[in-house]
């Protein structure tokens, strides 16, 4: 909401404390302005708009927007004798050339093509892994955050089921791995997951 820099001559209202009295004062003002004939009905703001309210001295107002600036209005008031003209002019925003724009809106490929993956879709999951068995970053794969999290759980399941034997970290000794599965206690045996 933008406060106009002009004051309405007819009355100066000091904002009272209670809400009731405040609303009554607002209504009184509106009624005052109604009685004076308003010229240029086209460009004038609507009667019930907050732009008719007077300036309050101790209120701080800030316009804050991160997205592109839309229609910007400035309220102008002109008095010619008996006639007061309150106009809401559409202005060009000064920040228009500096607004952030996406040249090519990129969407998540997984969401478009194959949103509901299973842990057994090994041909697809292996594309998103590096040789270590870790997931590639989203900046490389172009995948949205929700799908990335889903990939994490699916890849974890596929690895625990032993479906990705190539994507495992190298041994400290530097020797190549011989077994496609660990021989430790329960890890020897087959595992499956329910989708």
């Amino acid at each position: 909401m933008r406060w106009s820099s002009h004051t309405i001559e007819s009355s100066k209202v000091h904002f009272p404390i209670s809400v009731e009295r405040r609303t009554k004062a607002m209504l009184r003002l509106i009624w005052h302005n109604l009685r004076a004939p308003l010229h240029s009905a086209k460009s004038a703001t609507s009667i019930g708009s907050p732009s008719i309210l007077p300036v309050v001295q101790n209120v701080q107002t800030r316009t804050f927007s991160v997205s592109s600036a839309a229609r910007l209005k400035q309220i102008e008031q002109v008095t010619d004798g008996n006639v007061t003209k309150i106009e809401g002019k559409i202005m060009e925003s000064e920040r228009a050339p500096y607004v952030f724009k996406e040249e090519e809106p990129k969407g998540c490929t997984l969401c478009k093509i194959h949103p509901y993956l299973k842990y057994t879709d090994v041909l697809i999951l292996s594309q998103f892994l590096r040789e270590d068995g870790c997931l590639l970053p989203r900046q490389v794969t172009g995948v949205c955050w929700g799908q990335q999290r889903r990939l994490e759980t699916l890849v974890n399941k596929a690895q625990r089921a032993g479906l990705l034997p190539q994507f495992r970290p190298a041994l400290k000794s530097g020797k190549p791995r011989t077994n496609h599965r660990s021989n430790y206690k329960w890890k020897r045996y087959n595992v499956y997951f329910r989708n």
Partner: protein
Amino acid sequence: MATQRVLQWRAFARTWWLYDAANQCPFVSAYRVVPYLQGKHKPIFHPLSDVGDHVVVINTKDIAMQADYWRTFTFFHHTGYPGGFSKASAWRVHEIDPTRVMQLSVYSRIKGNLLRKGLMRRLHLFPDDKIPDEILENVSDQIRQVQPVAKRLDQYSEEEVTEFPKFFDWPEDFVKDGYKRHMTRKKPKRRYTV
């Protein structure tokens, strides 16, 4: 057209079924196998009529348990005597006897009446696919597997892997092995000895 005598023999014959338990859940397999032991797949079924069939289960050493169950699922036993309680995780039981887990799952699936022992005698479990010839001669039909077996990535051919549609192309400045640079440890790890 066969005589009534032959048709009678055919209706009441005891068939031998084969079931491959490789990469199958033992509990779900038991759910599938027990009706054949009882004879519930036959229209002449009655629990006291002894119309159940034999089931030969092979590859019991390759059964698959869900998620963490190899480690967390425990089998309990009590001898009936004081201090006779014992328990063991599924993997320990499987280590000692690869057919035991399948046997216990089928046993617990059957109702605990006097018929149970008779049905268990008609269940034949083998850890591998090595079956004695006498039993293999009797086997006439196969029970369908319960779960689809997932394919490992190295079981796909190289063509299939390369020709599969890719979801993204590598960016311009991306270095595939770049992460290795950050993973090397130059300083030796300091070990504190007391």
